[in-house]
């Protein structure tokens, strides 16, 4: 999978490295900013209130 992605990144090696790092950073931002906050309430460990 990663070998396939690496082959399809454009440019010389340093450009590939740069693109890969930026893509990884974007994915982390996406995870922390949107995906994890969305998953979190579905997890069973955040109940603090008494309710029915």
């Amino acid at each position, binding site marked *: 999978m990663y070998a396939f992605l690496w082959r399809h990144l454009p440019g010389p090696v340093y450009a590939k490295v740069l693109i890969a790092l930026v893509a990884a950073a974007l994915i982390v931002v996406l995870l*922390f900013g949107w995906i994890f906050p969305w998953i979190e309430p579905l997890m069973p460990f955040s109940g603090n209130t008494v309710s029915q």
Partner: protein
Amino acid sequence: MWAERARTAIRSVGEILITLGVVLFLFCAYQLFYTNVIADEAMRSEVSDLHKLWAAQPPTPRSAGSTTPVGLGPFDTADSRGTSGAAFAILHIPRLGDKSIPVLQGTSLDLLGRGVGHYKDSALPGRVGNFAVAGHRKTHGEPFRYLDEMRAGDLIVVETADTWYTYREDRDPFIVDPTDLAVVAPVPDHPGETPSQKLITLTTCNPWWASTQRMIVNGTLIAQQPRSAGEPPALTVNTPKFQ
């Protein structure tokens, strides 16, 4: 040739599994560290906004001889329903450190990331009834992380626009089922009865991580003084601390 293909397939499966492992690790980092960073910042800003608001609008002077506190603004209503999500008080628990914890109206999860939440139907601080508040035990600032270290006799201070309320914990923290609504009733354990005492109830999850139970702390109002009189003794006297 097929052997080459099989190797590629197996390698891809391995890479996907490693990727999932990294994502799970990141989720742990998010829960353990990132939510606390965000929530601590949000709580600090809620507290400083409240202080600014209270400084800008001095509470209405109370009528002579009246014992009921006034001046809670939009929350000064009989049934305690106010604007959802707005902070209206600050909780101080000397046993748990010097943290100022904002109290917001409502107990939905998104609010608990900015402070602790006031059960909307419960009484307001200092009123007859049960001032009930929920907070995170773990993650999102974890204001009630060490609630289990509180002991009967510990003091809980609630700061509002015009008054300091000091409650004393009645008994050591205890555990109930998540569905035990009676703990936040005006008369705890006796839903429907008319209250005569001024109580406070803190709820949080138990045990850490698995919120299969709720941990409860109860207290009774023992003192109150106007904000102008300065911090109550509970905050200035060197009380026993955990941590």
